């Protein structure tokens, strides 16, 4: 009797896509090893029965070497073998390497069903596999599938019940590879083909010169598209919505409320020369939705569109090779670029994905650097939106400062922290071209996630801060921090409220700076401080979860020190 189904396989074989197919639960899938770092659970209905399905992080063998793998393997081993079935998912285009884990699972006495995924790709690549013969040789059911289109999933579900433990003798690793060699020779036939353009591009991206050239082009084009798409959404959709439709409604509400008073202050905020100004009024119904929907959301959409595309094509691990050298100086290795890139979207998934790194030391360095030096999309959108008015020079300056902090702090942490950092050891996936529907779905779930996370915090945050400001409850805090803010950073003491709300969300915090009429220099310092000083509440929680209290305190001390040093340096030495 099967009570649980585990999905297990090498990294990047499409476990998460199979999982979504089986359970209907959407999980983020990408074309690089280590997309899934957490365990996801869902349910599969077979007739009247509901069976729990567990999506595990990818692993090459049953001996784990990273935290993500450890999670997968320990959970599987703890569960009684006669009650749990293992769907072992294989990349059919890479049968040989994938079979290592399969044989280990069968030897270990697990109830295994083999799922040869990415079956459609085998024909393009001139690979022919005799599935029936493979089933005979392995002694467990083998089903070919293409999870992105859903082909074979039904058959897979039907045959899950056939699984039962059929343990074989445990082989040594060498003997297992010999056995695999024999199996592959029997079941797999390769037809010779000429190199395709795809393969030429795959090879070019792992060579130093052509790889560097490609990365420059790709990063530049990506950046251009993010800006172009973002601006398009702002100008054609969100700004017209807010100014032409929403504003007249609010103006009437404002008049109905008598244009002043407590409720007006909360909902509409201050009128700027007699009118509502979405950027400066600071009301729950004015500035709060405008920041989130018209200034931030368009860039969240365009950023995740490009990121998802690059993820699914399989380009990101190639950046890891190019940056390995640099990241080694920071105590990390090339693959840390994945958490960093995710961190540019939102620090939370970025820090979660540091689990692809092997040691606690690396994870601490990477998490700290991400929460200090990697601004998330909402923050970046606001930096562009406000500081951009003073010219691109200032925006570029913020990035330059953050980048310098990343490098300097990384080098220092690498010197100071005991231990060493492991070496890069990753698989570079082939390029794949996901169906647009899959890409669209992923984008949809990411944006939905953003809205669910951001909208309530923004609305409640602005509400809370408006109440505090109205009753002058922040004056006490302002009084304490004023000497630091004014003396060291050269900011007006009203900026304290913005820095406080930065603990909730960085984008609103930048928005709070808008009515203060700061000079370019002051705004520059304020947004830089917001980026580095303190993580927002969501990042704070995930840091606590991932690093533990002791390391979290260390990370926060580092942030405060860096914030004070950089803020005063910018104020006194660099920008004069």
């Amino acid at each position, binding site marked *: 009797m099967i009570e649980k189904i585990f999905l297990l396989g090498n990294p990047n074989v499409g476990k998460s896509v199979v999982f979504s197919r089986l359970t209907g639960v959407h999980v983020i899938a990408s074309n690089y090893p280590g997309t899934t770092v957490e365990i996801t659970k869902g349910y599969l209905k077979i007739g009247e029965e509901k069976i729990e399905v567990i999506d595990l992080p990818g692993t*090459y*063998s049953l*001996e784990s*070497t990273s935290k993500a793998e450890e999670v997968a393997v320990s959970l599987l081993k703890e569960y009684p073998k006669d009650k749990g079935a293992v769907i072992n998912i294989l990349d059919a*285009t*890479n*049968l*040989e*390497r994938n079979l*290592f*884990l399969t044989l280990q699972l069968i030897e270990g006495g697990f109830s295994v069903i083999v799922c040869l995924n990415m079956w459609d790709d085998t024909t393009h690549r001139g690979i022919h596999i005799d599935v029936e013969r493979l089933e005979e040789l392995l002694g467990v059911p083998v089903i070919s599938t293409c999870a992105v289109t859903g082909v074979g999933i039904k058959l897979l579900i039907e045959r899950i019940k056939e699984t039962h433990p059929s343990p074989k003798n445990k082989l040594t*690793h*060498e003997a297992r*590879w010999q056995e695999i060699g024999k199996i592959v020779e029997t079941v797999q036939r390769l037809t010779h083909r000429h190199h395709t353009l795809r393969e030429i591009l*795959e*090879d070019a991206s*792992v*060579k*130093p010169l052509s*790889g560097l050239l490609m990365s420059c082009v790709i990063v530049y084009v990506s950046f251009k598209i993010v800006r172009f798409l973002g601006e398009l959404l702002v100008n054609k959709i969100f700004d017209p919505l807010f100014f032409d439709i929403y504003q007249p409604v609010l103006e009437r509400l404002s008049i109905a409320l008598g244009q002043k008073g407590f409720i007006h202050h909360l909902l509409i905020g201050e009128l700027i020369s007699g009118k509502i100004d979405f950027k400066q009024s600071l009301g729950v119904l004015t500035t709060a939705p405008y920041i989130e929907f018209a200034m931030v959301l368009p860039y969240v959409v365009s950023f995740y569109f490009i990121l998802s595309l690059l993820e699914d094509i399989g380009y990101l*691990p190639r950046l*890891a*090779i*190019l940056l*390995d*050298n640099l990241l*080694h100086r920071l105590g990390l*290795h*090339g693959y840390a670029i994945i958490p960093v890139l995710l961190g540019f979207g939102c620090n939370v998934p970025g820090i979660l994905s540091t689990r692809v790194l092997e040691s606690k030391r690396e994870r601490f360095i990477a998490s700290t650097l991400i929460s200090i030096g990697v601004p998330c999309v909402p923050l970046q959108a606001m930096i562009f939106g406000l500081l951009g008015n003073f010219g691109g020079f200032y925006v570029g300056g913020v990035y330059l400062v953050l980048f310098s902090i990343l490098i300097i702090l990384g080098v220092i942490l690498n010197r100071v922290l005991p231990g060493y950092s*492991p*070496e*890069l*050891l*990753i*698989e*570079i996936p*082939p390029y794949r071209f996901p169906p647009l529907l899959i890409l669209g779905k992923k984008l949809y779930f990411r944006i939905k996630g953003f809205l669910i996370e951001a909208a309530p915090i923004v609305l409640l945050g602005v509400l809370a801060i408006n109440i505090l400001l109205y009753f002058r409850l922040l004056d006490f805090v302002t009084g304490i921090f004023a000497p630091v803010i004014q003396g060291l950073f050269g900011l007006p003491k009203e900026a304290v409220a913005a820095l406080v709300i930065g603990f909730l969300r960085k984008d609103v915090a930048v928005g709070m700076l808008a009515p203060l009429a700061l000079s370019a220099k002051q705004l520059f310092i304020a947004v830089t401080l917001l980026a580095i000083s303190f993580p927002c509440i969501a990042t704070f929680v995930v840091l606590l979860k991932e690093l533990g209290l002791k390391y979290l305190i260390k990370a926060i001390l580092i942030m405060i020190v860096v914030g004070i040093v950089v803020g005063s340096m910018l104020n006194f030495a660099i920008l004069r």
Partner: protein
Amino acid sequence: MRKLSLIQLKENQKAKVLEISGGRILQHKMMSMGIYPGREIMKLSHFALRGPVTVRVGKSVLALGHGVAAKIIMEIE
């Protein structure tokens, strides 16, 4: 027969793995990714300044840090 490390192997050159002169964990990890004594692999590229090395093993392309690559001893005829 000549022995050399994966670092010294030339780009686009094929050779057999002779041994992995590292600890048990590294050997395990390499083994599970398909790099084991007797396996033929092809070096694809090598990045300057002690950068990573990429190799083709069967159907997969792997990227190895410089330190790891130095520990993989190859033999060529």
